[in-house]
């Protein structure tokens, strides 16, 4: 049969960011897909050569506008482990709380984008209305809606009072109740099931073979969550990763929906367990310049992120590298796109939760 090559992107209604796929089609069926990235490469990793390591955290959190808190946290955690800085207890808990709130924010954003991709604009508006309340929490506690700038090497810069934390938990509980009604729509609506169920099935073996990470792997039944390693305070939280076994697009939606509820629970637990009181130490100042190298793993909303930091004893780092979850999930996406119908390609691409700014840095 005659083959056609169809460009998908960089401008496409479902893509918020420029990703290019050259789809090779036989009739309406996709035979192969060749990805191209590099449209929004900004060279942020190169900036370590001229930006001091204390200032690089502000660059790191600008890698991505959705998981900006986690990028800032990952950079600071890496430097702390090189420089042997002990982070105060309350600062560590605050980081966990902000990280989990940002996971809720990111998943609500993605659920909205997913709804928009299959044409359910009403649901898209609902998800983003809920996300707005999370952004208000961020503005109240960190000072910024998207770029938070609270992480410093050695701790966090702002405290959140105990009464404010209690108010946040109440607010998140209300949000969780409202979200349950929306989650019912995602799970029960016949049009959504029709578009999502059984589409783009990734088996557990395939997920391991192509090294899928995050919700993508968990939706295929692979138990993989960096939070299970118990670092950064997660060892003291009652935590079970969300696992689905179907591996299709609907399973990936369900994993993210359940993670929203789970993260709200984790915030509640962290607020209960963190040391109480005003005026506690939040920051330990690092001394000297970093020497040595380290790998750091964090569980971002989209999956596992890997930072490599190498210091050479000067105030500029020698190397800073971030392997972001979308980069790890692109091979899985290509695997899913092969053999599917052309009309399902947008859905499949959206369900890996692509963040191209992260990928290209």
């Amino acid at each position, binding site marked *: 049969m005659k083959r056609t090559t169809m460009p998908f992107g960089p401008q496409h209604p479902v893509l918020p960011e420029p990703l290019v796929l050259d789809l090779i089609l036989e009739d309406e069926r996709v035979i192969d897909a060749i990805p191209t990235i590099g449209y929004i490469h900004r060279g942020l990793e190169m900036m370590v050569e001229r930006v001091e390591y204390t200032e690089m955290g502000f*660059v790191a959190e600008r890698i991505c506008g959705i998981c900006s808190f986690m990028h800032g946290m990952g950079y600071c955690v890496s430097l702390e482990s090189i420089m042997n800085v002990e982070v105060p207890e309350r600062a560590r808990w605050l980081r966990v709380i902000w990280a989990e709130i940002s996971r809720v924010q990111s998943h609500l954003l993605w659920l909205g984008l997913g709804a928009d991709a299959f044409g359910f604009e009403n649901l898209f508006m609902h998800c983003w209305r809920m996300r*707005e309340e999370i952004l208000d929490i961020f503005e*109240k506690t960190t*000072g910024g809606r998207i770029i938070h*700038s609270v992480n410093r090497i050695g701790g966090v810069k702002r405290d959140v009072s105990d009464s404010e934390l209690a108010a946040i938990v109440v607010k998140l509980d209300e949000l969780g109740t409202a979200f349950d009604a929306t989650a019912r729509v995602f799970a029960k609506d016949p049009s959504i099931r029709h578009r999502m169920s059984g589409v783009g099935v990734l088996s557990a073996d395939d997920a391991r073979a192509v090294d899928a990470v995050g919700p993508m792997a968990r939706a295929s039944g692979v138990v993989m969550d960096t939070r299970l390693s118990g670092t950064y305070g997660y060892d003291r939280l009652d935590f079970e990763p969300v696992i689905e076994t179907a591996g299709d697009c609907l399973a990936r939606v369900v994993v993210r929906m359940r993670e929203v509820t789970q993260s709200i629970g984790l915030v509640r637990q962290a607020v209960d367990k963190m040391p109480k009181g005003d005026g506690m130490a939040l920051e330990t100042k690092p001394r000297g310049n970093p020497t040595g190298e380290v790998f750091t793993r964090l569980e971002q909303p989209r999956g596992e992120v890997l930072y490599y930091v190498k210091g050479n004893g000067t105030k500029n780092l020698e190397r800073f590298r971030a392997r972001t979850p979308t980069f790890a999930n692109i091979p899985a996406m290509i695997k899913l796109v092969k053999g599917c119908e052309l009309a399902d390609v947008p859905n499949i691409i959206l369900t890996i939760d692509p963040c191209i700014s992260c990928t290209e840095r």
Partner: protein
Amino acid sequence: MANPFRLPMVPRALRNLVSRPATRRYPSEIRPRFDGARGTIEFDVETCNYCMLCMRRCPAAAITVVREERMWSIEQLTCIACNVCVEVCAKKSLTMSRDSKHVHVRSEVGPQGQRPGHEEWHGADPALTAPVKPAAEAPTSAS
């Protein structure tokens, strides 16, 4: 929740028909920013001792300080509102106001990419402190 059409969005959509909109009528109705929100840097010329620490620590290089001329200036559109200068200022001359930066229209931006009006300066007139001039006027607290 008995729904004859098995369309779970219908009750919510009907409720939306009679409820208030979630959005504001933005330009006429503006939500004040929360306390502690990071907006614009404000400078107090009376207390500053021109130690230049804010200039050295600014990650975006938005602040320029000339100690000899007693001149302090900030490029507001380059500033990323990270709060570092406020944290390092020993004399507490810098504060973070919660109001966001002004939006500049095209007519305020010069033809060659100059941005007059975006730079806020305190001290001697920048035109007088330009390097081509032999000496600056006596320190004044302009603006």
